[in-house]
């Protein structure tokens, strides 16, 4: 790791040398306000700047998070984005992460006299770091009872994340995003939802181009409706017919949501639509009127170490 000299002290106009993702290994503690007053939160691996770069370069004060070293299964879970309170700092090592649950403010003047290294390097890493911060702090706060309603889906997703080679694990892994639109608004329950499974690129077949060529699929739908999600996933992974694959995908998604309906709390969701969409077909209008369901982030916050 090569240290990069910081800017000179006393740059009142900000810190033009500073970027989001900069790590200051020698900063060993952060002040945290507790019931007993200001306490020291130790940061033996240093801290990382999370303030956006174009703000940081003008700022007198920036926000930082602790850098932590994870072990065991935590590393793979955090690396794959399944524990959103951690986001990777690949230039520090594959087991090094920013712990986003704890945030403190530091004057850039202090940072200017400290050794600085980069935590992220490539454009992809920089974008992923920024996206993870956004995911952590800008996600929509679904009503608690809605989060509870989706718990069976979250449990299944987490179970399959640990079994990525099963048919259901592979199938689950092909879903890019689950987006929720409350067609009757989020003001009060029960909610009337449109649940969109936005697939990863190239997963859904291009299929029938001619709009009028859609045929009668009632028999196929009825047949698939009687199958469990795991059975549908098995059939889906072995299938090649593009139109049939779409029906299988739709039935798979509906089977997952049916599980929530059966196991989740009552009188929360009044009715729902479930759709499976290729990202090229998901409109900006739909995007703006929906929120991503973060299956790995529905439970309450936890303290960073």
């Amino acid at each position: 790791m090569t240290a990069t000299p910081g800017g000179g002290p006393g740059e009142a106009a900000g810190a033009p040398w500073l970027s989001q993702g900069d790590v200051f290994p020698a900063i060993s503690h952060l002040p945290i306000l507790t019931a007993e007053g200001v306490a020291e939160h130790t940061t033996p691996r240093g801290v990382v700047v999370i303030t956006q770069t174009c703000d940081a370069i003008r700022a007198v004060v920036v926000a930082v998070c602790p850098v932590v070293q994870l072990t065991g299964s935590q590393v793979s879970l955090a690396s794959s984005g399944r524990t959103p309170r951690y986001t990777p700092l690949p230039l520090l090592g594959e087991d090094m992460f920013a712990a986003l649950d704890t945030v403190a403010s530091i004057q850039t003047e202090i940072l200017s006299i400290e050794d600085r290294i980069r935590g992220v390097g490539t454009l992809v890493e920089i974008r992923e770091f920024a996206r993870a911060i956004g995911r952590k702090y800008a996600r929509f706060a679904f009503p608690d009872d809605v989060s509870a309603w989706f718990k069976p889906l979250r449990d299944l997703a987490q179970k399959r994340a640990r079994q990525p080679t099963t048919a259901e694990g592979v199938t689950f892994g092909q879903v890019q995003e689950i987006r929720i639109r409350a067609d009757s608004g989020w003001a009060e329950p029960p909610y009337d939802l449109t649940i969109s499974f936005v697939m990863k690129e190239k997963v859904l077949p291009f299929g029938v181009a001619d709009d009028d060529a859609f045929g009668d699929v009632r028999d196929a739908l009825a047949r698939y409706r009687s199958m469990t999600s795991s059975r549908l996933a098995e059939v889906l992974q072995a299938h090649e017919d593009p139109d049939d694959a779409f029906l299988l995908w739709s039935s798979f998604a509906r089977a997952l949501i049916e599980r929530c309906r059966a196991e989740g709390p009552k009188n929360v969701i009044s009715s729902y639509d479930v759709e499976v969409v290729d990202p090229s077909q998901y409109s900006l209008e739909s995007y703006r009127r929906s929120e991503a369901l973060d299956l790995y982030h529905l439970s309450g916050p936890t303290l960073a170490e």
Partner: protein
Amino acid sequence: MTPLVIDRTSSGATRDRSWEQTSALSATRRNPVITAPLGWNIGHGAWTAVEADPFVDPWFQTDWTATARTEDSVPTHVPRDDDPRSESDEVRWLHEQSGLTWEQLGRLFGVSRRTVHLWANGSGMNATNREALYELVALVRSVQGETPGERRRSLLSPDSSGRSQLDTFRDRRLADEPINRPAAYAAEALDTTLDPAVRES
């Protein structure tokens, strides 16, 4: 507020179906609901309601009985007595008779064309879309035209303000502000009344 009429007669079959719709809609919508029996003159003149739905929260109930309604005030999404159909039948009828493509229907409902096609094949709809379906069916029934092509032209014809009936239908669905506003960033960047530091950040 325009009353949401579910049923227009006291005939058994229609009313049974309407009670189901009423229950689903009442659970989610705040429109006043009139169930039945209503007068026979919908579409042809004055009508009255003689009974409000006892299952609807009284706060939302409106007694329309004393008020004679004219044709203009009658909501258009009333299923026809002589033609009871399932939701999937209604979607198929809509596709066949409106002259609109699955893609266009999807845009009207805010879902993919495949989703509308699945509705036509018996996949369930949520209550909001079910309500919109009946509105759209009634709209298609009301437009001039003998063929699907002619009805499509009527639906897409702009009025004096440049808006078609389908534009108006879609405008109602989009009446609420979207919860995500990414496009607003561009608008803010061009807003010269904002602090320059805000525009540049």
